């Protein structure tokens, strides 16, 4: 027995169809993976964020998500940090000082979140630029009695 008869007699058509399906399915999966490769690489680049997200998910699974009340805590720390910065700025001069120097001092002296503190001081115009790249401390943040 030869040719198509032999193929039919030995389930050749079914085997060919299964083979065809497997190969094409593989190609489809491969094509889809390649087309989504940029997302996988993006996720890999931002894996730290992804890990944080997963950790948060695990942390809050089955629990109600606590409502953050950062203002009181943050304001308190911010106020303390700003006061520490004011004490530090006295050592470099309140007028035309170098902002990176204040940041360096704040880091060395362990001021809580020195970068955010300086950002807030700039935002509140307590530290103002003189236009030449240097900065001045304009008003005191130290509360009386503290």
């Amino acid at each position, binding site marked *: 027995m030869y040719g198509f008869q032999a193929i039919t007699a030995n389930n050749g058509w079914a085997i060919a169809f299964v083979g065809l399906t497997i190969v094409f399915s593989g190609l489809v999966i491969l094509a889809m993976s390649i087309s989504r490769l940029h997302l996988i690489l993006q996720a890999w680049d931002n894996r730290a964020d992804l890990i944080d997200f997963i950790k948060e998910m695990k942390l809050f699974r089955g629990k109600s998500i606590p409502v953050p009340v950062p203002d009181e805590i943050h304001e308190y720390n911010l106020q303390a940090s700003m006061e520490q910065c004011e004490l530090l700025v006295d050592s470099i001069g309140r007028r035309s000082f170098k*902002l990176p*120097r204040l940041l360096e001092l704040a880091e060395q002296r362990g001021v809580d979140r020195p*970068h955010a503190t*300086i950002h807030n001081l*700039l935002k509140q115009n307590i530290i*103002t630029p003189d*236009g030449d790249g240097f900065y001045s401390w304009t008003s005191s943040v130290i509360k009386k009695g503290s």
Partner: protein
Amino acid sequence: MTTERKLLESMKLFEDFKAEEIQKIAALMRPMSIKEGEVLTKRGQPATTCYVIVSGSFMVYFKTGQAFTLQNAGDVIGWSSLKVFANHQGTAVALTDGKVLSLPGTEFYRFLKSDIKVWDKLLKAVAAQRADWFGRMAENNGKHIH
């Protein structure tokens, strides 16, 4: 329309660029999350990437101790990467958490090389923006310009 493209279109730097040119540049950009205190560029190190600010506040400072802050979406950090074999002139540090779009200098340079007209347009736009920036700095002497 992607975030990258929207942001580029809103930037004065790219106002004379055609939509397809902006699309090509946007395709080269990669979004990055930046943490408070993270250093984006370091003075004296090879300038390989420039960054377009999406959100957050950044301080750029120089050898002299002069510094300025950037917090507007579309502000650029690391212009030196647009030159060939240049080092960063300043150090850029994040004062707050933020997001930037990174533009690898080599890929951007390859893109510019492929279209000399776009390159010419970009150089003129960069020169105009820098002149405008220094002009504003002189005008606003004593004021916070950002």
